[in-house]
């Protein structure tokens, strides 16, 4: 087994008296699609917030490529190669799809305080935007306002923006939440395509998606990771059955 690309070591997070994450240990291997499942309130979103820098852990280490990123700001974590999407669609609603992606791509090229160049003439940036549009299958919608996209299109855009920084590790927080069956299948295919050659950590409630998409699954219950393994191993794990899967696995 190669060295983990993302590794959580004895991570603990509490808000006052509430201990949300307790001694979580998780290793994500380069190139795998790793799903985190668990009942509501288990701390999945908190775990994501810790990895992406929105929260700092109370205790423990979070290693990205062997370097501790615990306590770094989201922007710094992003620059080190970890990008995330959000559970709630988090895009720029009042501008076009193209503009949404351009804002995301410009960061990668360190175009922030640049006021002497025309954005329309940034050839590399615009090519990458077109490329992303193709990948997320929104080329036809490039000039549409993001707020006018359908729900699943907005989720695709969200994923496209996550991809823009060309991250090694992608965190997707419930990308299929609120989707119909067709939309879920469509998005699962999209995720499979775009995570080719990258590492994916995904939180998702739809078990059929999780078990078909993920190489490995970790189960989070009350802030603790009680099991990690392949879908078969997880299906067969007694503790998981008891704690979470219950009827579904039977």
């Amino acid at each position, binding site marked *: 087994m190669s060295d983990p690309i993302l590794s959580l070591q004895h991570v603990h997070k509490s808000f006052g008296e509430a201990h949300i994450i307790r001694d979580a240990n998780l290793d994500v291997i380069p190139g795998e699609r790793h799903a985190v499942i668990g009942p509501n309130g288990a701390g999945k979103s908190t775990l994501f917030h810790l990895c992406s820098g929105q929260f700092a852990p109370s205790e423990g280490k979070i290693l990205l490529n062997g370097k501790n990123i615990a306590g770094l700001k*989201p922007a710094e974590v992003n620059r080190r190669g970890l990008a995330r999407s959000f559970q709630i669609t*988090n895009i720029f609603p009042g501008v076009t799809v193209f503009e949404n992606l351009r804002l995301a791509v410009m960061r990668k090229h360190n175009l*922030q*305080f640049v*006021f002497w*160049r025309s954005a*329309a003439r940034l050839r590399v940036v615009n090519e990458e935007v077109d490329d992303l549009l193709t990948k997320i299958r929104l080329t036809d919608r490039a000039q549409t306002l993001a707020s006018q996209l359908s729900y699943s299109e907005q989720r695709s855009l969200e994923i496209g*923006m996550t991809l823009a920084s060309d991250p090694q590790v992608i965190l997707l927080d419930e990308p299929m939440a609120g989707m119909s069956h067709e939309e879920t299948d469509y998005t699962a295919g999209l995720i499979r395509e775009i995570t080719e050659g990258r590492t994916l950590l995904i939180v998702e409630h739809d078990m059929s998606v999780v078990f078909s998409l993920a190489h490995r699954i970790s189960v989070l219950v009350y802030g603790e990771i009680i099991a990690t393994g392949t879908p078969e191993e997880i299906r067969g794990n007694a503790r998981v059955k008891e704690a979470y899967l219950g009827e579904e696995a039977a």
Partner: protein
Amino acid sequence: MKYAPLLLLVTVAVLIALPWLVSGSMLNAAVQMLIAALFAMAFGLLCGQAGMLSFGHAAYFGVGAFAAVHAMNAFGGEGLLPTPLLPLVGGATGLVSGLLAGYFSTKRTGVYFAMITLALAELLHALAPHLKTVFGGEAGVSSFRMPAWGIGFGSLNDVYFLTLVWTLLCIGLLYLFSKTPLGRLALGLRENAHRLRFLGYNTHALGTLIFAVSAMFAGIAGALQSMNIEAANYVVLESHISTAVVLNSFIGGVRVFLGPAIGGAVMTFFGHVTSDLTRVWLLYQGIIFVLVMMFLPRGLVGELVERIRNPSGEGFARTLSTLLARLASLAIAAFGAVFLIEFLQRVLSPEYRAGVTDGNWPDIALFSYDWAPLSVLPWAFGLGLFGIGIALVTMVNRRVAARKEAQA
């Protein structure tokens, strides 16, 4: 919008020819309109594009005005800073004060941001009378425009062209700015600063920088103002200047590029015309703002752009006739309302009240007729016209709605 370049060219041509087309008083108003337009554009960058509503933009307009006056006195319009380049001083001062104020105010967003900008501007306004060497106390600081580059700068025409060149140049620069990566990021800041932060941008630095650029252009507008009147007084720091730029920009349409400029120019023109005709012109300005916000929330230009982008589908002739019908009905209602307001204002004025003796109410002259205030006639006339106008516009609206329904 394929006619946009042509329209722009015609507008610029008219602006260049203006001194030969209008009277001196009107040209003077035009100078103020240009300054108001540029000031509103500076505000529009911050509020419309970056989504930060500043209630204290008078501060940057004001420091620009004072900086230019001091520079005028110091350099005498020669050497390093000849008269035509003086607005640069206003811009530089605006930029520096904008960096400072922006650093603190952009640490917060929304209402808190607005409150900080308001507090900073009020702080400066309260401080100004005490700093006599800088702000000149009650009398202010005055100066003279000196000739430079073979131009006298004594005549109104010279001042007009100076203001025109700077205003057009700055609006052009603001347009180009909106196309740069930083200008695009302003939109991101407005739409979703949280997402921008997660993409790895430094939103505080971005906000500060955009604030400073906005303050810089406000400072240039302030410099043009003090060069126009050859003086600056701490009155330019008053909150009503900050309020006016907010109202003007929203009336024009803060989210469309030239909206604030048109709003600033139109409302300044409106003020110029009506302040000679009536004492309650500020009331009219307020009513216009409320009506625009209620019925044309995108602003005048914003609504126009929207109509052009998404035509009603009824064809040009139909749309035009509907528009004319609406305008005609509204004009009737407006005349009725103006009549009532003016009549009421005259009845309530202290001069008139002093003339009322023993229940004898003299007639009031309004629109070249004498009206008896105790008679029902003037009130019925005003209310009636207002009612007829509103009824007509309602009728037009119903017809449009019925046609739409029939289509659907």
